[in-house]
């Protein structure tokens, strides 16, 4: 048993030995800040992995539990003076744990559905149709509470309603414009297709305003990040392969996603997942090179049209999702977009790039810790006196709304591109009034 566990982690032996246990990760780890225990922070987790590698321990249930205590915010890796990518090593340890002990039963059940694209689509459409029965709407937009207990979900948690009609069913596959200057494939991702369709609509409108033809391949599926970070590498690779093949069939000029994690999957994780498969790696890299997060795309590639923007008189602060700031390193572009909107007052919050505590399924599995991390974010938001929080990730949006609701604060949370869309609409309204 022990020997076998050791084998499962052998390939990261060198990477682990680079950790000098200095504990610099303790400064930035959001979970350590709340729990102050070695198992919360990268150093303690790497010690445990090291113990398995040295044959002093096995991949136990306690090992699984500790490795799950990570939001994958990459703050430790960004801070580490030795360049140890602890977030990636922890995901590798989760993979070893899945090989040694199997997936957590709830995750296993969820992934079984997720694996089957049609079943997943059907399930979430049903959730949208029957949502009002199981969810109670709150006064603020895009916020609901569970009416009944559900396995694995805290009933105090504010969730977002599932869309009655998914985004991709609301539009034709190809959204034409008169004189397209380019043709892009829109990878919607699950949260935007099934929940935050308002973001998807904003992406489509903004691209139309800039004469970009948008195509939403109907066969696209979950990007695989939730599965990948849970340690199910084989399933993640199956998703990656499916999405690569799907987008290869079209000859897109570019691929656009409007979620930091989905963008990171295409740009970084897919090529790395196939590190030992040169042919797939090359294909993944080709797709990755074409992929942009929407703010990055509008600023760096499209050079979006600022002449048509109208006034949006609000004060906005911005939360940088972990996968945006440390995953794909896109932070200046969303700010440039916000600051180009006439009438919009932009204020930075303290620690804008600190994790909000969402961490995908982390906030579901560890709601109490996720709340504590979130409290710091909410207090920083409150200090800015902003009306709106802009961000670029559906999970962050849901989690921050949950925190604002708990604090009884009125701010709304939206995607950066929604504010830009609002500005284009205001510009159009003004022009039609004038004519």
């Amino acid at each position, binding site marked *: 048993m022990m020997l076998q566990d050791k084998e499962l982690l052998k390939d990261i032996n060198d990477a682990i*030995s*680079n950790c*000098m*246990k*200095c*504990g*610099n990760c*303790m*400064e930035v780890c959001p979970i*350590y800040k709340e729990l*102050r*225990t*070695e*198992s919360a922070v990268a150093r*303690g987790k790497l*010690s*445990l992995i090291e*113990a398995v590698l040295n044959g*002093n*321990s096995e991949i*136990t249930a*306690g*090992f699984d539990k*500790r490795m799950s205590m990570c939001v994958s915010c990459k703050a430790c890796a960004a801070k*580490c*003076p*030795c*360049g140890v990518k602890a977030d990636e090593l922890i995901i590798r340890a989760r993979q070893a744990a899945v090989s040694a002990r199997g997936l957590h039963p709830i995750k296993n059940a969820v992934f079984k559905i997720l694996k089957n694209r049609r079943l997943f689509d059907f399930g979430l459409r049903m959730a949208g149709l029957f949502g009002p029965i199981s969810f109670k709407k709150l006064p603020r937009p895009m916020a609901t509470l569970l009416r009944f207990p559900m396995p694995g979900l805290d009933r105090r948690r504010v969730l977002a309603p599932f869309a009655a009609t998914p985004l991709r069913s609301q539009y034709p596959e190809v959204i034409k414009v008169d004189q397209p200057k380019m043709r892009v494939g829109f990878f919607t991702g699950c949260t935007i297709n099934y929940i935050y369709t308002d973001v998807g609509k904003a992406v489509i409108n903004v691209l139309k305003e800039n004469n970009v033809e948008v195509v939403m391949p109907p066969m696209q599926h979950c990007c695989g990040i939730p599965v990948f970070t849970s340690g199910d590498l084989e399933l993640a690779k199956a998703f990656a392969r499916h999405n690569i093949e799907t987008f290869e069939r079209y000859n897109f000029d570019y691929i656009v996603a409007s979620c930091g994690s989905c963008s990171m999957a295409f740009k970084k994780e897919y090529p790395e997942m196939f590190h030992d498969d040169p042919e797939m790696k090359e294909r993944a890299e080709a797709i990755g090179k074409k992929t942009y997060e929407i703010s990055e795309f509008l600023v760096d590639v499209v050079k979006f049209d600022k002449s048509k923007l109208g006034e949006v008189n609000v004060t906005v602060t911005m939360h940088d999702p972990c996968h945006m700031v440390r995953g794909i390193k896109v932070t200046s572009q969303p700010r440039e977009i916000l600051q180009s909107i006439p009438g919009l007052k932009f204020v930075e919050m303290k620690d804008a790039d600190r994790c909000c505590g969402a961490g995908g399924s982390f906030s579901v599995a560890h709601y109490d810790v996720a709340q504590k991390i979130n409290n710091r974010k909410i207090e920083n938001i409150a200090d800015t006196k902003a009306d709106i929080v802009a961000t670029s990730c559906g999970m962050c949006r849901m989690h921050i709304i949950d925190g604002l609701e708990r604090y009884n604060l009125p701010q709304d949370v939206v995607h950066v591109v929604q504010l830009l869309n609002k500005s284009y609409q205001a510009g159009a309204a003004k022009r039609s009034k004038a004519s």
Partner: protein
Amino acid sequence: MRQDLIDAFSKIVGAEHVLTSEEKLLEYADAATPGSIRQPDAIIEPADTSEVSRVLALANVEKIPVYPRGCGSNLYHTVTPLAGGIIILLKRMNTILEIDTANLAATVEPGVFVADLNNEVQKSGLIFPPDPGTLPTATIGGMVAQNTTSMRSLKYGVTKHYIMGLEIVLADGRILKTGGKNVKDVAGYDLTKLMVGSEGSLGIFTKIIVKLMPAPETKKCLLATFKNLGEAGKAVENIIGNKLVPSVLELLDATTIQALGNNALPGLPTDTAAVLLIEIDGIQTVVENDTAKIIEILQTHNAGHIAAAQTEEECNALWAARRAILPSLAKQNSMMWLTDVLIPRSKIADMASAITSIAAKNNLTIATFGHVGDGALHPTIVCNAADRNETSRVANAINAISALTLTLGGKFSSKFQKDQSGQAETYARQAIKQAFDPNNILNPIHRIKEG
């Protein structure tokens, strides 16, 4: 650990604060010290002084070794439970109890992060100067236990100069209070000073009264390069000799600069053999005058390239490079030995050059850097732990550095250190230890070295 003991400790601190799972024990088996790994038998997380007292009373009766631990960032294995026993984790005692601006003092619990204290006192225009700067999560309790120095020790002194009073739980659970907020606050034996630097071997701190200072109005940072170590050493000697006291005066030798790589300190001339990093703080006009004088001295000693950081960011980049030294060295090979050399400032150049030849003679990588302003150098050796031949050369080099330090009138310490204390000192230390901890339960193995 025996179940009845676990139950007894659980009764004191609550079962959820007595950690005994295999994974937990492994996580606390080491800290930032190479080579020392040993699992504790349990980790206990007391909430207050009374719980610490009851835990120690029981440990003392049962003769269980005890190791207090803050965040485990120290480099001298004093938190590794080398004789087994229990770790007392002070993370729950993390409240800043009072900031007394009228008396320039703060009262804190031992688990408070030094960065959190500094952020708090900054709001009142104050600083807690001995912040080690290397790690914001270092705890105040750990700083007191180690008598930590900081990069700013030249001007501001070390931790012992900032500890005004302590509450300490003794080995048998009795609670001792020393000092206070008054500037003198002691007659007879100064027990506060005795406790600072006691490395968890005389008692466990449960409250700490620290002295605060007004924050400097402004600061300036300089970088200067030299073609040889001698010139850098002479420049240091002359800066201090001219009655200039920078807050920071750090030396980096060529091996250290190489380890940092080109990105940490960009734009250095390729023939750089030494770099000085200097910070001058205080009142605007004084800072400007002193900076001009220091630049003049640097030029007299043929500094090749002198750069003054223009912005706060540029300044921070210099200190980030300084902080990156140890990690950059650690990355180079599987093992790193950090040593401490304390030497009169006038001998810095001789010492640093001699270390370069010791490295060459033993075919080793030895990086030398340190707070030269206060005569502290850290010759640090990186080697392959699996290579027996190399580790024996490391031992030779350490002995050579140690001997040289003593010849030059300095003090040396490392994990390999031979006892340098004379007979009388050993006697005094043993007597103190015996008086405070007759059953030798407080951080036992570590102190045996001293005794």
